[in-house]
């Protein structure tokens, strides 16, 4: 009996093997969405718990990696939905290097704040597409929506971000 068949049949040892094979990848994917190592660890466990709970629905000839990534994305999205109003900005925000110093600390904070106020489903695709530069195809596969809908959500996220930023800090309005 193959590993995936044993897992689907409820074999805990098979599940452990799959867990150890995929935990790093699920963690890395989740971390790129939630951007917090502790939360990413908890969500990795939550993802595999959902995987184990729904094992009977998994087809052993299917793609476990893609299935796990989809479930991880849903778990991360659930987290973003519930945590979006609890975000506080840390003192030392990680930010990309800006050699020309074009983005000031205040502007950066405003962008962070505006970004965290985006609805979860828009923040998720914007994080993956614009910050992490993940391909639209991969995002579509992970979120279970079409590639064109991913593009629409990224477009809307940017528009919403612009509006929020303008209302938060009129001095950083784009021309």
């Amino acid at each position, binding site marked *: 009996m193959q590993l995936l068949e044993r897992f689907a049949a409820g074999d805990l040892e098979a599940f452990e093997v799959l867990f150890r094979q995929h935990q790093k990848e699920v963690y890395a994917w989740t971390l790129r969405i939630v951007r917090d190592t502790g939360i990413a660890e908890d969500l990795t466990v939550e993802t*595999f718990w959902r995987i184990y709970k729904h094992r009977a629905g998994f087809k052993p000839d299917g793609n476990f990696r893609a299935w796990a990534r989809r479930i991880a994305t849903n778990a991360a999205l659930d987290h973003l939905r519930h945590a979006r109003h609890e975000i506080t900005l840390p003192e030392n925000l990680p930010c990309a290097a*800006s050699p020309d110093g074009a983005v000031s600390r205040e502007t950066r904070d405003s962008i962070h704040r505006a970004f965290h106020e985006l609805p979860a489903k828009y923040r998720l695709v914007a994080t993956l597409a*614009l910050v992490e530069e993940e391909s639209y195809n991969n995002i579509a596969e992970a979120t279970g929506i079409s590639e064109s809908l991913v593009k629409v959500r990224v477009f809307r996220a940017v528009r919403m971000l612009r509006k929020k930023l303008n209302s938060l800090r009129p001095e950083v309005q784009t021309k």
Partner: protein
Amino acid sequence: MSNQEIDKEMEELLKQAVAPVQDTELRRDLWPQMLRKLEEPPLPTHNVPWFDWALASLAAAALLFFPGLIPALFYHL
């Protein structure tokens, strides 16, 4: 400046303000944590407090009397 150019500028601002995660390495094995979660007793399904039911009823009544709220609700889901 066209809207497209402004959006492009916004994307660039975002990229400068929010860095991609550099270190995605998992530092510890999560299997012990997984085992603990698997061993947790399942939550009873009837532990919804009364005020959650009251809140749900209020929300349902609001949607019934003000159907215009439905698109706003979907937007925030």
